[in-house]
């Protein structure tokens, strides 16, 4: 074979092998590591899977945070003003986690419908709302007296 062609052949096969390996890895990794986002209404309606990790987003219900006095367990409710889901988390909550503020919790649902969270994300500053939460709340109104809509 002509050396230049041989060289091209080697190069092309290298590219093919490497990119198929990469695609295989990507497909494998994406399969288990994508989390879908659900607002509380969807969770209550049974649309969320219970066998894998999901992301739940909405507002923390006022007066719903219950902290343990002896360890780091915390239970709170997340709402989109249509339905509410309880979340249990053991660990340190982010600085801007508070009642009446937007939050995204990641974890799996247990049999009773409570989300056992492995991670809780709050917004980064006073004026900011996580886009997913903003979208989930769009068009829904807060009960009278609450002024927490974006």
């Amino acid at each position, binding site marked *: 074979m002509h050396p230049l062609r041989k*060289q091209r052949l*080697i190069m092309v096969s290298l590219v093919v092998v490497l990119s198929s390996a990469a695609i295989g890895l*990507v497909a494998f990794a*994406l399969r288990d590591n994508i989390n*879908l986002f659900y607002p509380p209404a969807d969770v209550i309606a049974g649309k969320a899977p219970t066998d894998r990790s999901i992301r739940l987003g909405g507002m923390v219900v006022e007066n719903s945070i219950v902290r343990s006095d002896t360890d*780091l367990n915390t239970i709170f409710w997340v709402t989109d003003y249509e339905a509410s889901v309880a979340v249990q988390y053991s660990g340190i909550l982010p*600085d801007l986690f508070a009642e009446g503020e937007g939050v995204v919790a990641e974890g799996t649902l247990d049999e009773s419908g409570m989300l056992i969270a492995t991670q809780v994300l709050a917004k980064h500053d*006073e004026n*900011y709302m996580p886009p997913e939460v903003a979208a989930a709340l769009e068009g829904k109104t807060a009960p009278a007296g609450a002024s927490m809509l974006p």
Partner: protein
Amino acid sequence: MIPELGHVALIIAFVLSIGLAALPMWGSVRSSTSLMNLAPTLAVGVTTFVAVAFALLTVSFLQDDFSVAVVAANSNSLLPPIFKFSAVWGNHEGSLLLWVLILSGWMSAVAMFSRGLPLVMVARVLSVMGMVAVGFLAFSLLTSNPFERLLPNVPADGNDLNPLLQDPGLIIHPPLLYMGYVGLSVPFAFAIAALLGGRLDASWARWSRPWTNVAWGFLSLGIMLGSWWAYYELGWGGWWFWDPVENASFMPWLMGTALVHSLAVTEKRGVFRSWTVLLAIFAFSLSLLGTFLVRSGVLTSVHAFAADPERGLFILIFLALVVGGSLLLYALRAPAVASRVSYTAVSRESLLMINNLVFTVATVIVLLGTLFPLVMDAFSLGKYSVGPPYFNAVFVPLMALVMPFMTIGPLSRWREDSTARWLHELMVPCLGVLVVALVLAFLGKDGFNLWIALAVLLAGWVLLGVVKDLWRRLSGAPDGRLRWRTLNPSFLGMTLAHTGFAAVVVGAVVVTQLNEERDLRMAVGDVEELGGYRFELLSLGQQPGPNYLADQATFEVSHEGQVFAILVPEKRRYFASGQIMTEAAIDASLWRDLYIALGEPIGENAWAVRLQYKPMVRWLWLGALMIGFGALITALDRRYRSQVARHAVPDTGALGVAG
């Protein structure tokens, strides 16, 4: 008055940049020397007026002029002056102005240090950069004017800077990162200029290379600082989150890594030319994509200052124009500049091609993971998030794949080499490293750790290649003396960067594998053991700061009965915003960090506390520093200066543009 002057200066800079984008380019078409000669002057003019605008915005911040919307939203009279200064770019409008300032700074640097280049080349390069400047100045003026006033309702005091950004790391992180981000516009402009001229030869690569290395070096340093900041400021001790915004800066870096290596081949051997041009285009496009992701508010992030669809759309259109335009030009012109030089499968060229392939694939993978949720959302197919497990699963094997070749690359010969020679050179080091890796992996207290063994093996392999290469250059003189002169800046820079890469790998794997973390409730007098260290909570107290009040916990840390550190983590409450901020306390050393962060108070006299023991975490940033400085050093090489030296420019060479 000052903000209005700033606005006028920005408009003048905009008009000048239009001139820069059009006139020299037209001159290069018409072969008009006088038009082309305008390029450097116009470039310096743009820089001057952008700098004036930036300075005036800074004055507004320092003078607490709360009639300016940006100042009112991001500063406060109680804010310490140094943070008033960094608040200038701690917001969307100001950071965009910084972007333009740094872009024009690079333009002026090119204008100053490229006097040895053919006039038509300089004119085209500056013109292309001028076009980019037009886009961003228009963006700033039309959608994000930093000088907008809040008249007549001037607030009495400002909203304060986001407390997360009130940190010394944030004073230098954005400028450094932007130096890298925006610096990639220089190789891009060189690539476009070369395509326009149809002249893609080794000398083009030699002109472009120092700029690329310097930009890539700054990008490395900027990313490193961002990682370090996240580690100590976010309060949970992570150093890389695969957050979309991190990825936004990481993708140009990965592409830039491929570009830096590909340029080496193009300069030395004249091959890979079209590929190099393509990489330069992609690297800058990814910079723009990063700017879009970060600035449009499509991402949940500390960097997303405000969501405004108009702004996002503007950058998206600009991105489409730049990518579409340059790829069209590439399609039209690239075949005309194909090379006729050949090389064999066993050669340095092939090894560098493997580097290019791996880093390109890595970029695509990160791009996929970053854009997947956005694309799914845009087509209403659901709201997804792609987390760290995905990135780790694909990225780590790729890096492991490239490391074996990193050792052979610098030792191999251009054009044609033999595997027998590689074996001869590397057999002994290879066995040595294998033994060391096995021994080290058994030393850990939990017995054998496969991942650490692999990391030490690969890093040691890279390091031995570096040492072998160093020795080969130094020895071999007939009189037995060491040949120090063979160690030119290019070689030293590469050596430093490769060593740094090995350090990053070891640090990343060790801290991931041996990290110990505990979240727990601690009351005064409580003691906790972690990683062989004893933490005792001595007392709780309060301490006022300039614009906040801090709850403090005082910890005594001891090791084998010896008290060696008092750590005082804080929980701050900022007055203006009422925002709460965690300030972690860290005892740092080369071999381990001890990290304490406060959660929230639990009952009387007790706090939720996060204790962490992080072995070798410093290696990550030290390694990244070495990579960054290694890249900067290469630009000092004599051969990049040769054309410039004739014009009696001071000795600083291309590195001088850093300022």
